[in-house]
């Protein structure tokens, strides 16, 4: 088993939380992992990405080679396309369709979505809306992770458990919101993949 995942979005969208949840799940599943994070200036409303590598055998590089990622998990549509050189020919894109517009020259969202649609293997959903609808407006990132969970080859319960571990110092409400968001994302993906 080997999964190379690019997790991306804009600073503040919860990229590190997605990575940490998969990390906890990986450790509990007895898998090896390497996860490269972004810290520093790039967090100020800029592009944020994490390289996440999972495997049952030894992992060498902390960075995923270009053209070899199995998944791009993105909380923002344009960011999904930014890391496309990493995606393998058989790879999947799981992305939010809701743009994060914090600068003037943001491209036309319809054209962006056309670009994403050009990739046959993708799951795209408005995770912000989904999260709002289930009363967990701050958990769009977990909706996206839930949508990607079908392709992670990990026990779904391990991901739920990962959320519990990640937010162990937070209130039960926070944990429940995140788990609901994760489930909502997964349900969408199940429908989508039918």
């Amino acid at each position, binding site marked *: 088993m080997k999964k190379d995942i690019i997790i991306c979005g804009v600073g503040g969208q919860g990229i590190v939380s997605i990575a940490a949840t998969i990390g906890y799940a990986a450790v509990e599943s007895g898998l090896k992992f390497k996860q490269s994070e*972004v810290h520093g200036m790039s967090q100020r409303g800029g592009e944020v990405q994490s390289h996440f590598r999972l495997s049952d055998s030894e992992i060498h590089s902390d*960075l995923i080679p270009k053209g070899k990622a199995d998944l791009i998990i993105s909380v923002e549509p344009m960011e999904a396309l930014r890391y496309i050189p990493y995606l393998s020919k058989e790879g999947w894109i799981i992305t939010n369709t809701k743009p994060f517009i914090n600068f003037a020259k943001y491209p036309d969202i319809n054209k962006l979505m056309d670009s994403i649609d050009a990739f046959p293997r993708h799951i795209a959903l408005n995770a912000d809306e989904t999260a709002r609808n289930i009363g967990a407006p701050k958990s769009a990132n977990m909706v996206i992770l839930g949508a990607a969970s079908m392709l992670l080859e990990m026990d779904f319960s391990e991901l739920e458990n990962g959320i519990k571990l990640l937010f162990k110092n937070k209130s039960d409400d926070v944990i429940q919101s995140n788990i609901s968001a994760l489930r909502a994302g997964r349900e969408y993906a199940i429908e989508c993949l039918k």
Partner: protein
Amino acid sequence: MRKLPLLGDEAIAQGAIDAGLSEIYAYPGTPSTEITEFVQRSKEAKAKNIRSSWSTNEKTAMEAALGMSYAGKRAMVCMKHVGLNVAADAFINSAITGVNGGLIVVAADDPSMHSSQNEQDSRFFGKFAMIPVLEPSNQQEAYDMVHYGFEISEKYRYPVLMRITTRLAHSRADVAIENRNQQNEIQIPENLKQFVLLPAFARKNYNRLIEIQSSFQYESLNSGFNTYFEGTNKNLGIIVSGIAYNYLLENIGSAKSDYPILKITQYPLPSELIKKIYDDCKSLLVIEEGYPFIEESISGILSNGKQIKGRLDGTLPRVGELEPSLVAKALNLEIPVGFAIPEIVVSRPPSLCGGCPHIDSFNALNEALQDFTPGRVFSDIGCYALGALPPFDLINSCVDMGASVTMAKGASDAGLVPSVAVIGDSTFTHSGITGLIDAVQDKTPITVIILDNLTTAMTGGQLSQATGRIEEICKGIGVEEEHIRIFTPLKKNHSENVKVIREEMNYKGVSVIIPRRECVVTITKKTKEARAAKSKTEDKE
């Protein structure tokens, strides 16, 4: 023995905690900050009474660590690569004094300049100081090398430099850890003149440093970190260092491949092993993160021997960090061609957070400067360096910690009046104060704006030594009280704030203006923590 998922930075911190560290000293700087933060958060460190408060700058950190070492205890000092420039005087001379308790200096380099102003390679500093340099290739090695580093530091009585780069610092993997050492007891040096670098003593010490080089060479050969892997295809030998070793293995699967491989993670370069791979092979490829340090050491100016490929001949790019695909290309391996980024994708420049006090300060300053020709604002290292970008297009320099004040002084001396310095509160105590003393001494007409957001914001909100004492510092070094002006950077105060800046720019002497409002990120964090704490208590009730 147990396993923990740790960042490279955290593996170093945990290694130090387990190796009998007594205190860690640091000034925050990406990508080194998490080393000290980990010690600050560690319950183990707390239980062991390991001290871990922030220092005012890298030089004070380095010197305090040297004092800890003088007293016989183990100390670690951490900084980003450019921080080592600030600490350089103490660092270089710590190799002349030598140490007593073990001392490890960690410098985190930032090739590709993810959050830095250059990509200088700290291995040169290690060579300059003539001390051992450790360059771990992964998180586990980083952890193990801290133990080893303290051991050789105490065995030979010299400081050791550990050099890491961004990718190792900020990448997480499982690390096997075990508690190995208790802290040292206080024990001052046997020779009470060891740390006295008067010329007569310094000459003796320097000779000892030269003599000890053969021992460092012995360690590089025998410690087990530098490894030679035999290979059958001797058309090419590969010398690979630090994290680049992982990129090589990513491409060839295992170090037991066709080519002879020399893995370097410890310096001085092991001459014997370098000679061996050179003699064994028809040509060499050097793969290293950072400057062509090894490559230059072995190819020299004349290059009249065998072919040596690397960053100097274009086999690998001369600048920027490495990644697996670049190494594949250097090995002539087939690399998968990824999709091209669609043209519609544009870069997303970093910007100040919504509600950031700097926005209001910059808007006020921009308006106050309207009547003058452009190019008068000297700035510094911090979030506010984003003032160089739209919509502000305000600042004209960002060079090194504290340079805003001194460059404004120099420009003012040249006749550019008004000249404005824009500096953050933490940067001001780090290195701005001394420049301000120069300006006060000279009665230079400059306007110094100290943006006080009550934290070291850029690196994630660490303690700022300036908090609560900026006015007192300014008064103490001679800035006239009536020219120390404080305002709250808020939209509703805009015209009043513009007026204050204008008045002070008209003053033909040193003015200090302090726009004061807390960083929105630290405020939000505090509010969240308070709310979480409250709801936890309510849960329990």
